[in-house]
């Protein structure tokens, strides 16, 4: 499948590398041209040499989304550092480009919950951390090293 990832920080770049390694077509959009360095960290070959696509551009610009191939995407990941940006572009991907598999990173649990109720697949790292930490405090789970 063709995966478009908007926002190439720790999260976006990690997903991009995993998906590419699994043999998918992966295109990454970020407003910072230097973000490609995160995709290449710890890799022997460059991102584009391995067949990945990278586009520099702003998430809200339709031209940038099109240049990154949004009209061919089977899956869309919104992982910029802005919750509101992620929620807006995810809805654009869903409503305007009819992408079925849209996942959104939202740090604020309240917004993540409400938009999930509206039909968006939101992933809230904050909420996940709260639940894991609470379980660890209660002694219900015990981590060896880093969770996950």
């Amino acid at each position: 499948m063709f995966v478009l990832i908007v926002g190439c920080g720790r999260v976006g770049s990690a997903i991009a590398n995993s998906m590419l390694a699994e043999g998918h077509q992966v295109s990454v959009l970020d407003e910072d041209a230097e973000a490609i360095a995160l995709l290449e960290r710890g890799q022997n070959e460059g991102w584009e040499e391995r067949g990945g696509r990278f586009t520099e551009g702003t998430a809200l610009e339709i031209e940038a989304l099109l240049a990154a191939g949004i009209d061919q995407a089977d899956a869309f990941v919104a992982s910029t550092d802005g919750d509101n940006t992620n929620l807006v572009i995810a809805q654009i991907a869903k409503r305007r480009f009819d992408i079925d598999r849209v996942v959104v990173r939202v740090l604020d649990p309240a917004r993540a919950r409400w938009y999930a109720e509206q039909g968006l697949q939101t992933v809230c790292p904050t909420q996940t951390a709260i639940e894991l930490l609470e379980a660890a405090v209660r002694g219900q789970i015990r981590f060896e090293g880093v969770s996950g």
Partner: protein
Amino acid sequence: MYVVIVGAGKVGWNLARELIAKRHEITVIESDPVRFSVVEQELEHSAQYGDGSELWVLERAGIERADLVVAVTGDDEDNILISQVAREKYGVTRVVARCNNPRNLQHFELLGVKPAISATDLILRLIEHEVPQYGLVHLLDLPEERLEIIELEVAPGCEAAGRKVKELGLPDGSLVISILRDGGGFVPNGDSVVQASDQVLVVLDAELETSVTERFSDRSSAPAA
């Protein structure tokens, strides 16, 4: 009326002042601590500090009883999100949003945020009015109703110049509502004669724009509008 304004920039602050002067109850939410302290000195308890796209901040401001929510931050994605939750989560029926970058207007429309107001667009409209291109100015667009009011300059030598209104042969769904001439204006009847260099105001179905404008433009140079 109770109004929640998100964003205490120039627009938000001045709007707050105007509404207070008109004896409305308002709350302005501002997320920048420095700006907030300045605004709070004047607006006192009507100003609240916080990120207006956080739901609890909106709730603390009493969004659920707001008659109107105005989203005028400097970030379009914030304005879209605030407007969306105001309407869809909190049931606020009247929401007005500011669109900072006119290229983002399409996103406001796609996500059902209307009316969205773009200052850049408004200024462009004014420039268009002052310096008309192709002799056509959009005075009012009602996209829902599929109607618009346009101002046209009657080009010398065009089909309409020198004819009576009833002989213009305008398509059904269009009507000349005013003729502006020599600094004045009047509402014409069927026997009023349209002269070259007049400006005419026409209300019409948006789809008829081309067939109406061609009657008023010089036949030798086709308008691009």
